[in-house]
């Protein structure tokens, strides 16, 4: 049609890509935080996303809590769930081998899914966009306010993330544990507590991801695995354990997928994402932002 031109199409694809990518980025950050603290991939990460979304829906539509309050409350509830998960399933393990912990996280993910099914049933839930769905027009491309929310919240989280890990005592001690757990213990850092914090933060970030995408995709109890998958891809591409890398990788993945869908074919969208993952694993197994030397040293 005549009212669209090459540039506005491109811009539209980029907007779509950034929106997709922001979600990948948030899920990937959640994976990384726990990976750094425990050395395992938390398979219940997708469940945190689902819980965040579902609790938010219940609070806003059934209890009529204002969106801002509900946002923080839902995040808090999921963070508490994360802490409970760590205290009751990860912390008591006497010999925390990698494999053992991974299997525990799989069990927890099944458990959380079951609980969510009992509470919310099998329906998918939907809530209104935070601030309406009248699109903004920018150079012929359009963007929904919700997409701006997603991008904005990602930026805020990254900002607080950097602040937390570089300028607070807890954040620094968590980094110390990630880099060398024994040495951290020697200087008096409680490494078990650091693991608990990591579950709380990662659950919180997961919940936020769930909250901001629920207005767009609706949420049901079984979504977790699907949401976790692409986020995991982003975490690997960005260099496992490197959260800023995960954000960059997530957005790159999202944009490349969107461009692929727009210029090649949407049939190959998932294939394109997997291809990038494979290329990165072949050429730079430590991820685009990780260096091979540093990959032995974990850092948030």
């Amino acid at each position, binding site marked *: 049609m005549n009212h*669209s031109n090459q540039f506005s199409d491109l811009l539209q694809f980029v907007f779509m890509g950034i*929106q997709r990518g922001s*979600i990948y980025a948030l899920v990937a950050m959640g994976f990384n935080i726990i990976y750094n603290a425990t050395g395992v991939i938390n398979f219940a990460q997708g469940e945190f996303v689902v819980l965040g979304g579902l609790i938010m829906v219940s609070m806003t539509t059934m209890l009529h809590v204002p969106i801002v309050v509900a946002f923080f409350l839902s995040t808090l509830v999921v963070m508490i769930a994360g802490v409970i998960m760590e205290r009751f399933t990860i912390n008591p393990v006497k010999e925390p081998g990698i494999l053992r912990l991974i299997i525990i996280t799989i069990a927890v993910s099944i458990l959380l899914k079951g609980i969510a099914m009992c509470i919310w049933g099998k329906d*998918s839930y939907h809530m209104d966009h935070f601030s309406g*769905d009248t699109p903004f027009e920018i150079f012929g491309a359009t963007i929904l306010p919700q997409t701006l929310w997603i991008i904005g919240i990602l930026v805020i989280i990254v900002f607080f993330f950097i602040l937390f890990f570089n300028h607070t005592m807890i954040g620094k001690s968590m980094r110390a544990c990630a880099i060398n757990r024994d040495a951290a213990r020697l200087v008096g850092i409680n490494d078990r507590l650091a693991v608990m914090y990591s579950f709380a933060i990662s659950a919180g970030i997961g919940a936020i991801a769930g909250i901001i995408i629920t207005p767009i995709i609706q949420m049901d109890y*079984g979504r977790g695995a699907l*949401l976790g998958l*692409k986020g995991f891809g982003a975490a690997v591409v960005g260099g496992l354990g490197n959260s800023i890398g995960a954000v960059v990788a997530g957005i790159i993945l999202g944009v490349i997928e969107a461009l692929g869908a727009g210029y090649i074919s949407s049939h190959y*969208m998932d294939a394109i994402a997997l291809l990038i993952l494979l290329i990165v694993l072949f050429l730079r197994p430590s991820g685009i932002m990780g260096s091979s030397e540093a990959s032995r040293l974990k850092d948030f």
Partner: protein
Amino acid sequence: MNRKLFCFTAVSFFMVMSALTPHLFAEDYKVGCLFSITGSASWLGEPERNTAEMIAEEINKAGGINGHKLKLYIEDTQGDNTRAVNATKKLIKKDKVCAIIGPSRSGTSMAVIPIVQAEQIPLISCAGAEVIVEPVQERKWVFKTPQKDSDCVKRIYDHLTAKGIKDIGIISGTTGFGTAGRDQLKAIAKEYGMNIVADETYSPADTDMTAQLVKIRNSGAKALVNWSIVPAQSIVPKNMKQLKFDIPLYQSHGFGNVKYVEAAGPAADGIIFPGGRLLCVDSVSDDNPQKAVLKQYRDAYEARFKDKVSTFGGHAYDSLWLVINALKAVGDDPAKIRDYLETSTLVGTGGVFKFSPTDHNGLDKNAFEMITIKNGEFVVLKD
């Protein structure tokens, strides 16, 4: 001595009683059900189970079928092929059912077909795919109640032809339902002279389809058909509104869930799709033969389960009533039930069924009503 005599009398009394029981009381009619009650397709299996239990209760309260109680053996397939196969074997070998309704999904239905064919037990599937009952010579024991994808496509193409639209774009989900629909859309296009100028897909986890829609817009499509059964399909109308991409949007019968309409919000208004009449009972014309059945089933279901009635429960309703009618007519011999089913007619929720030895679905494209969305409600399309 007295005690011995008493014992003897008592024992012989019980022996005689237990020998007589089956003759004193009519044996139960045993019907198996395979529904995906939990798991990823639980939204199919749950209303199906509810419906089946509700009907069985009704029947038994009214004295059963010719004096026989109807006993359901409900198995949860979890939407999983292996489980469905095991459950089918259990129903046939252990519970000795005379007929099976379900499974809920096309995949599980295909998986159990070889068993019921070999064991010669009639099965009425509640799943969509047409291959379940075709080719009919290899599906002697298999029937199904949901409407056919190809009939849905034909209704959409009929409507497009009436509007004079030839160039269409299609966008479909990458699930089994979406892929099957996409194949049908492409296969039947030639027959109607439709020209598919764009063919895009999206995965169930996608959050934004603007790239696909921009591509479709640039292809010059005059109408768009969105074929999917996952919640992500609600994003398409929203994104179209966002892009001010204003062409008629058609959806498949997979859109027949009020949640999807709610999720699409005002963008859903004006969407056209072929669906079962159960979705829009109130606006179905009074002279439609299905009206009474639809109203009765909807009211009973919604009053009892405090939940919206769904077309999937309707498929179980139709399947179970077909079996009940057969049991009434010929008793619980599987072969006789099968033969009876092949000659059955039923005014059901999915349409007016007319089975024959060459048609194990019994429905034609008139089973679909063209439905549109007006102020967030399903209503029958008038033009």
